[in-house]
């Protein structure tokens, strides 16, 4: 059974459990810091990196601002190359299209490469419902499929699993011998998967980039399994989010360098595959190539100038690794398939702010995400925008006497009137008298300050404010 539905309103609970679980907390801490450091090392010695970021951002801006044009160009070129293009507005449509293709190919198994879009549309559930077996061939995806979990990270889905966790899963689900040697674990997974590549009639992948100029689907990986998924089975299906386009083949050089360095700190990932149509006479490769263009909420973001930039994302995962909040609460706390800073943008956008209203608040707005983002997405700024959307469209039921909006109305009223501000401060000084000891308050019972004093002391107001002292200065 795999995890489904949207649990973003459980962020406090799931995040809290991760923080309280030493093994999980350590797995997140060490993997994110490792990836963050690799990235840092690979970009700090590279003088041209800033220029690459600018070039990448500009190419994405060009695509997103003229998306209809590039979509048309890409689709025409895919068909010209002999592929078939399908358009899917919703998750259900994606699933239906894929199931239809698999059925027509009379396949019982689908070998899958890692694709976040498939996670997003819950493709595995749809395939299983249609009696088709989805086989994850990415090691991380294979692990979380066995665990019945969602990806914990957009690049490393099993980043939260220790070697012992993985071994436990292999022993339990595929009768493997216990080991915690990484190479042996990989070999176990390889053996379990190898025959599947031969057997499966359909291979399914995502796309890291889709080149409009040539109709090429580009995948980037380290394990080699994507290459096998896309070439061995008779039919290849690529799920492509409509934001994955890049204008020209020449831009690819910019993006694969940005992606490798930002994601894992590699100059270049091990395999970069350019898939331009199905096999031609005398070549290897699938007989059919289907490209499913996925909207599923993206066009809505495209129409919103405040959020549009979110579509520049190349899903490198750097913002997750850099984010001090993600490092603590982990990926599952975000309650859907995308996590970290980009997840806190994508999830409310795709599933609606009502179901994910806490996510934009799950950030100290430190800006570490923007600092590492290869295409310089202003994530904190968009989180702030979503916060105001949340307050307008999905106000939170409150634990306090006064709900947040009236509380802030009152606050603003006081702040607009210095006399009231002074008066309020005076009252607070009287009010704190029984609570304050040597300049500190240990407990304030009223929400939200009660949340502060659970584990922190609160400073008492100074005996005299600056404005009072100023008169004597």
């Amino acid at each position: 059974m795999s995890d489904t539905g949207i649990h973003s309103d459980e962020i406090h609970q799931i995040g809290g459990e991760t923080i309280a679980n030493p093994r999980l907390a350590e797995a997140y801490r060490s993997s994110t810091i490792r990836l963050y450091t690799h990235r840092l090392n690979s970009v700090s010695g590279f003088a041209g990196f800033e220029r690459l970021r600018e070039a990448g951002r500009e190419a994405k801006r060009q695509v997103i601002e003229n998306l209809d044009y590039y979509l048309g160009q890409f689709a025409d070129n895919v068909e010209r190359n002999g592929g078939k293009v399908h358009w899917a507005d919703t998750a259900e449509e994606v699933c239906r299209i894929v199931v239809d293709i698999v059925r027509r190919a009379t396949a019982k198994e689908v070998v899958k490469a890692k694709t976040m879009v498939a996670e997003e549309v819950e493709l595995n559930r749809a395939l299983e419902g249609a009696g088709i077996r989805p086989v994850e061939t990415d090691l991380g995806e294979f692990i979380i499929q066995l665990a019945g979990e969602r990806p914990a990270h957009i690049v490393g889905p099993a980043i939260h699993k220790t070697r012992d966790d993985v071994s436990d899963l292999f022993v339990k689900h595929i009768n493997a011998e216990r080991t915690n040697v990484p190479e042996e674990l990989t070999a176990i997974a390889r053996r379990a998967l190898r025959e599947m590549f031969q057997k499966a009639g359909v291979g399914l992948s995502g796309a890291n980039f889709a080149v409009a100029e040539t109709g090429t689907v580009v995948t980037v990986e380290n394990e080699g399994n994507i290459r096998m998924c896309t070439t061995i089975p008779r039919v290849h299906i690529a799920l492509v989010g409509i934001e994955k386009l890049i204008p020209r083949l020449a831009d690819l050089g910019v993006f694969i360098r940005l992606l490798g360095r930002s994601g894992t700190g590699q100059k270049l990932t091990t395999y970069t595959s350019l898939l331009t149509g199905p096999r031609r006479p005398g070549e290897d490769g699938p007989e059919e190539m289907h490209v499913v263009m996925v909207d599923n909420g993206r066009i809505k973001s495209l129409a919103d100038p405040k959020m549009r930039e979110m579509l520049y994302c190349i899903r490198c995962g750097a913002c997750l690794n850099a984010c001090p909040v993600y490092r603590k609460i982990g990926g599952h706390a975000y309650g859907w398939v995308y996590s970290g800073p980009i997840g806190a943008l994508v999830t409310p956008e795709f599933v609606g702010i009502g179901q994910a209203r806490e996510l934009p608040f799950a950030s100290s707005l430190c800006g570490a995400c923007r600092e590492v983002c290869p295409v310089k997405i202003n994530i904190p700024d968009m989180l702030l925008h979503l916060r105001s959307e949340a307050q307008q469209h999905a106000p939170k039921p409150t634990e306090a006497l006064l709900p947040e909006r009236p509380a802030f109305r009152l606050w603003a009223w006081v702040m607009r009137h210095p006399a009231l501000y002074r008066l309020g401060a005076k009252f607070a000084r009287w009010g704190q008298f029984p609570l304050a000891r040597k300049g500190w308050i240990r407990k304030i019972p009223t929400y939200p300050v009660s949340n502060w004093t659970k584990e922190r002391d609160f400073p008492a107001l100074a005996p005299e404010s600056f404005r009072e002292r100023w008169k004597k200065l």
Partner: protein
Amino acid sequence: MAKPRVALFITCLADQFFPQVGESVVKILRRLDVDVTFNPAQTCCGQPAFNTGFRDEARSVARRVLDLFEDADYVVAPSGSCSAMVRVFYSELFEDDPDLLRKCRELQKRFFEFSEFLVRVLKVEDLGARFAHRVTYHDSCHLLRELGVDDAPRKLLRNVQGIDLVEMQDYKLCCGFGGTFSVKFPEVSVPMGQDKIHAATETGAEYLVAADGGCLMHLAGLIHRQGVALKTIHLAEILAQR
């Protein structure tokens, strides 16, 4: 050159909780022969409401700030976060009103965070201060990433006599304060603060110094609750010591 006229934006936090920060700023600026004024009609910059998603409320408070400082050469605030609010986020608050936006842009040109003002505008790096302790500097995220100021506080600190300035591991990492984040996500905010305190104590520093009352209040509150042997201090307080 005529004496530069500086209007203080003291920030509500320093006004009510840390008045000694404001006093230190006044002391330092006067030593530098700056004409310092304080307009008592000021309250808050509006950031708490803005960061919580209440833009109308934030705007109504921010509008006053646009009017309060019309005749000062410079406005100086001893907080990276409040300075970032004015310098960066005000543009967003007033983007739909051309008149207010013009006023906002005009104020932004004259508005500086304290250390930034000393180093970049007055071009002073040595204030003749003395503070014979080991300290470590914590970059507040807004000062560091919204205003891009990381050199000014360090330059000023390095010139303090007797000081031993050491860097923390991952010194750019957020301390977990984050405004209302600190009470909305205390379960995350607190361990982030603990990491920062750990990094600071690892350096052997006696003091953690920062240029933002918010971070200091959060870290000091944790330190005090847990009885950690580390003191917190605002940059201005060190620079005012003789």
